[in-house]
């Protein structure tokens, strides 16, 4: 991948809201060149989507619960963990699935409106899958930082004096 593609990706990874014009100015390129780069990166699926990081705790009546579930599975012959991972990640409640080293195999992040809802999903759907041997569920109590962003950064105003040498 070319250097300026990496630069572009880093910029929009931090802020997907930057306009093409602004990206062009920041990178010292023409808007058309940026559009072309983005199209190319989307086509080869280096860019998979543009999402917004929302603190749902701040939105009334929209509180949500997240659980991290450690899942032990029996890998299937020939396809290893991929087949069972797919069975799991196709559920819309599942927000992330990672294959892990260590004491368990898959780390599954599940989101729902209530603990009950998540509990039901795990007992009825997840743990009943044929190749799932066991699950251990950890509920998230508070989010401090997500994907590099600090959620409650109360004191981030500029502390510099207005004019200095």
């Amino acid at each position, binding site marked *: 991948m070319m250097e300026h593609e990496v630069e572009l990706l880093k910029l929009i990874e931090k802020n997907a809201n930057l306009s093409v014009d602004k990206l062009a100015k920041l990178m010292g390129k023409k808007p058309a060149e940026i559009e072309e780069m983005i199209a190319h990166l989307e086509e080869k699926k280096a860019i998979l989507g543009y999402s917004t990081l929302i603190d749902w705790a701040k939105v009334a009546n929209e509180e949500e619960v997240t659980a991290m579930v450690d899942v032990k599975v029996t890998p299937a012959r020939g396809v290893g963990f991929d087949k069972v991972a797919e069975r799991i990640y196709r559920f819309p409640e599942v927000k992330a699935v990672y294959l892990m080293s260590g004491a368990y195999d898959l780390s599954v992040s599940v989101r729902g409106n209530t603990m009950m809802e998540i509990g039901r999903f795990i007992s009825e759907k997840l743990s009943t899958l044929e190749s799932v041997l066991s699950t251990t569920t950890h509920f998230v109590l508070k989010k401090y930082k997500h994907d590099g962003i600090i959620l409650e950064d109360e004191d981030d105003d500029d502390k510099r004096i*207005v004019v200095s040498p």
Partner: protein
Amino acid sequence: MNQYLSKQVADLKPSGIRKFFDLAAQMDDVISLGVGEPDFVTPWTFIEQSFHALEQGYTSYTENAGMIELREQISGYLQKHYALDYQPDDQVIVTVGASQAIDLALRTIVNPGDEVIVVEPSFVAYVPAISLAGGTPVTIQTKAEDAFKLKPEQIEEAITPNTKAIMLCNPNNPTGTFLTKDELEPLAAVIEKHDLIVLSDEIYAELTYDENYTSFPSIARMKERTILISGFSKAFAMTGWRLGYATGPAELISAMVKIHQYTMMCAPTMAQHAALEALKNGRQSLQDMVDSYKQRRNFIVSSLNEIGLDCPNPGGAFYAFPSIQATGLTSAEFAEELLQEEQVAVVPGDVFGANGEGYIRCSYATSLKQLDEAMERMKRFVTKRLEKAPVHAEASN
């Protein structure tokens, strides 16, 4: 009480920046492009390392010249990045900011009546620091048509039998001008011919965006006549820690240590620990900040030119220095009216020297969001002025 002031202090001119600061500080909702320091908070690992040192009880003085581990790191860093060879034990001194290094260096070499050359537009502290050291500042005015680059003939013209030294600042505050090796070498030739000492302020050396940096003492035969001055404020976002350093010939550095031991004892210990971490593990943080400054430079320079303020691309530091002549205003008028009307603070160019008149300094060490808003506001301001002063606009285009 004024009769009690020393003549030297009474004669010092108040800083033009100070005046502007007082004005801006009274206003709300100001977007400041007037700040000469990074907008980034010091990288967390440096802060955390300083906490750790404090917890361990490192709360006492260090050696006068600074902790030997830190001097070793500085020496290694200069070797690695600038091919400079300085001995940690007698060619490096850790100071309270580059500011103190400048003061110490001047007091070390200046006798009453000695002239020291300053290249304007320049950092505001050089001229007063020379006067306070008992020297006579002699200024050179670089030209806008040379992109404010110092020319060897200009040094020749400024030299008298009393010339002792020259202050260089590369990249330059306030212009962002960056001199390459090819541009420094002819200056070195004149400096050698006239046997001058060089105080080379390289505090912005890490903040260069297009070409490789050449440290002045790495030029042939310059090391023995150069005091290199730098620090952690800009590159590592550590202004408030007050930590800098100087390197140079052992005789000069040990003379600086002599003044330092009587007037300062040592640089702050907790800051020295943070700086040690910066040099050991700070490269990625530094690189991330440099990448971001470069993008913002590209952004502000193209925005200023779009607005109608002619702005060449500065090679380093975090300042853009656009011409405001098309508006028909003086630098001071421009800065004051912009502040009053649009609440954007910039620094009028004339505070950095007479040839800064007609220019303003815009610091781009500010978040993109703020920069963007500042450019919108400046656009409104400038458009009105250009409509009013079409003659000026045409004359300067």
